[in-house]
């Protein structure tokens, strides 16, 4: 892909190089900084005002969205007024700079900062010291936080549970998604069925937690049960249970939480599989039917191999998703009853216990866990070579 705009190509003098570099940096960092400052002033004003909530909300929306748009317009206008070579040197940075600066501030640099924090004790590196002083200060603990991450008993429980989440959560979502996609493909109620299965994707985890808490609602034996599951169980002669809180069967009580995510994610898997299945040429299926293959053979020997790529990518996505699962566990059990996962431990350590070092170490472990996927994405990107 070639640019439409020609940069000229002639060699620049060293001063011009330096000036253009400075200009680019200024544009990349300047736009977000000025935007930030303008928005910040507006916010201090909003925070201190006593206007009705609806007015504040509306002003906030207009201020935020409008402010950002206007800044792009102003900066573009300024750069447009520059002489041509400067314009083509600087203009791309008006466009791309803010995005890169924000990404750097919010994701790229924090990975390094979090790693740095993870080498220190609960208060993190103390401010106002230089690098050497920080490394020799008492708060520097080296890799001790990582040792704790892998040895503390609650952390081990969290790793075990997260493994259950990853294995059962992703497998069941994929299996149900696949079954529903295949069935819906041959059914007359395809559209309605898909919409209804897909619907939970719009529901928040907190909402889903309420929905499922209501199903698991527990009343002591003898009282009328209002939860669906316990009503079924008692009508079959069983004992009512507070399912996710049922410690006796730990760690399998985690399955009652995992069900929620399967309920939410199967729709996602279904949509992707459905699209992939529709991509299989009808002739192949027809030909194998004529050759006498039954539906199960077609499913296992033709459909599954032809959508293997989609299955793997859906699987990976749900694995990453369950790796970071937080809301459901936090709202349903708060991590009690043997249901802690890595992300709830992260929250507990970093924010409840205010142990930044430990929390940061857990976050780094999460990051390391997704590195294979990151590597794969980059490899895919290189192979596509859409970019020169």
């Amino acid at each position, binding site marked *: 892909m070639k640019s*439409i705009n020609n940069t000229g190509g002639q060699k620049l003098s060293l001063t011009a190089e330096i000036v253009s570099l400075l200009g680019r940096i200024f544009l990349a960092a300047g736009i977000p900084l000025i935007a930030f400052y303008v928005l910040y002033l507006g916010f201090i004003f909003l925070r201190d005002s006593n206007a009705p909530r*609806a007015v504040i*909300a509306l002003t*906030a*929306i207009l201020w*935020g969205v409008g402010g*950002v*748009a206007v800044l792009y317009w102003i900066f*573009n206008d300024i750069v447009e007024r520059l002489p041509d070579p400067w314009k083509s*040197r600087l203009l*791309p940075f*008006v*466009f*791309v700079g803010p*995005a*890169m600066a924000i*990404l750097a501030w*919010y994701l790229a640099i*924090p*990975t390094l*900062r*979090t790693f740095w*924090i993870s080498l220190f004790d609960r208060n*993190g590196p103390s401010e106002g010291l230089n690098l050497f002083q920080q490394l020799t200060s008492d708060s520097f603990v080296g890799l001790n936080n990582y040792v704790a991450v892998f040895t503390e008993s609650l952390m081990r429980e969290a790793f075990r549970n997260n493994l259950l989440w990853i294995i059962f959560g992703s497998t069941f979502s994929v299996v149900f998604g696949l079954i529903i996609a295949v*069935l819906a493909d*041959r059914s007359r*109620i395809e559209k309605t069925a898909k*919409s*209804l*299965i897909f619907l*939970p*994707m*719009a*529901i*928040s985890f*907190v*909402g889903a*937690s*309420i*929905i*499922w808490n209501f199903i698991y*609602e527990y009343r002591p034996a003898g009282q*009328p049960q209002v939860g*669906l599951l316990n009503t079924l169980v008692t009508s079959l002669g069983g004992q009512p249970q507070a399912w996710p809180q049922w410690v006796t069967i730990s760690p399998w009580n985690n399955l009652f939480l995992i069900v929620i995510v399967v309920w939410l994610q*199967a729709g996602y898997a279904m949509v*992707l599989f459905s699209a992939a299945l529709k991509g299989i040429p009808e002739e192949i299926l027809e030909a194998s039917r004529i050759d006498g293959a039954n539906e199960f053979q077609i499913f296992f020997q033709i459909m599954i191999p032809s959508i293997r790529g989609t299955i793997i990518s859906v699987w990976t*996505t749900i694995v*990453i998703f369950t790796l970071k699962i937080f*809301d459901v566990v*936090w*709202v349903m059990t708060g991590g009690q009853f043997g249901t802690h996962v890595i992300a709830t431990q*992260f*929250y507990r350590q970093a924010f409840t216990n205010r142990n930044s070092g430990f929390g*940061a170490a*857990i976050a780094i472990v*999460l990051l390391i866990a*997704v590195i294979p996927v*990151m590597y794969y*994405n980059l490899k895919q990107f290189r192979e596509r070579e859409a*970019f020169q």
Partner: protein
Amino acid sequence: MNSGKRQKFLGGLFVNGTLLLLVILWTIPTLGIFVSSFRNRNDIAVSGWWNIFPHREWKVTREIDPAAAGLNPDGIMEVEGVSGTFDEFRAGLSTPDGERLRWVGNKRLGRIQVEEQVWTVSWNFTLDNYRQVLGGQNFEFTKPDGTVEVVPGDNMSGAFLNSLAVTVPSTVIPILIAAFAAYAFAWMTFPGRRTMFIMVVALLVVPLQIALVPILRDYRALNLNGTFLAIWLAHTGFGLALATYLLYNYISSLPRDILESAFIDGASHFTVFTRLILPLSVPALASFAIFQFLWVWNDYLVALIFLGGNPEFELVTQRMAAIIGARGQDWHLLTAGAFVSMLLPLAVFFGLQRYFVRGLLAGSVKG
């Protein structure tokens, strides 16, 4: 041929039957809270929501006074052709004509109720639950015995507005910024273009947990915690990689000739971007917007950390989580509240399902 038809019919029955079963399984949880949110709070506390469907219930038709009937609770009693001990009567004994006899109360002062099974529905619907959940002030509730109880409202409407004030800019700002960047990646050359894009791709799957500790430190230093701005910027940062990536994929696939002719006519990049590219990219913008909207609206973790300290700016998800924590047994509130929180996402979902599916197929899955 006939057996072939039969097989086809059976196959269709199996396919549709299984699918229907799965659809019902998937729908029941949501249906349960939807129905319950309209039921009277006393009904919710003692009976399941499925009682709105016709079912058989025992109803007392008349009572027998054991003393007047000359019964001795210590021995074997015979009533209406049924005999049994006190304990058996207490558990309930059925008569040959389908009635049930039950001893209510203690041995000395109790009485025997004759009950009969009748078909009934529990259709005592109300909007009170919604009134209490949405209201910010006190809410008066009249109990069945006539006493009035004053309970505080849950102020979901305030939380709803807050959620809106957080969600709209958190959706629009990253789209705007990402669209500019995607345009630059697709149609401009500049040094570092490839490196920057590799950064975008690499950051796609980075878990946002990695950023929370350092960003919270920055926010404390800037005195930003608990403001809308803090959470807008956070959602912008966390959604930007995916937004740039998706929009780049779309914008770079637009036909080049349109742009070239625009440039020949002397249009600037900014004009081409705002007049040509943005309108052409509406499908991609819409599908990402839906995702980011749902993601931000349903988010709990980011709000908990960056808005957690300020009860005035509580969002819908935080409000709900707080009700679960404080009054987890008050199902009339939880069900109504859950439904309020789902209202907007469901409307967006049903209204824009086409774009939603398209976004999913394009890879809208966040790190």
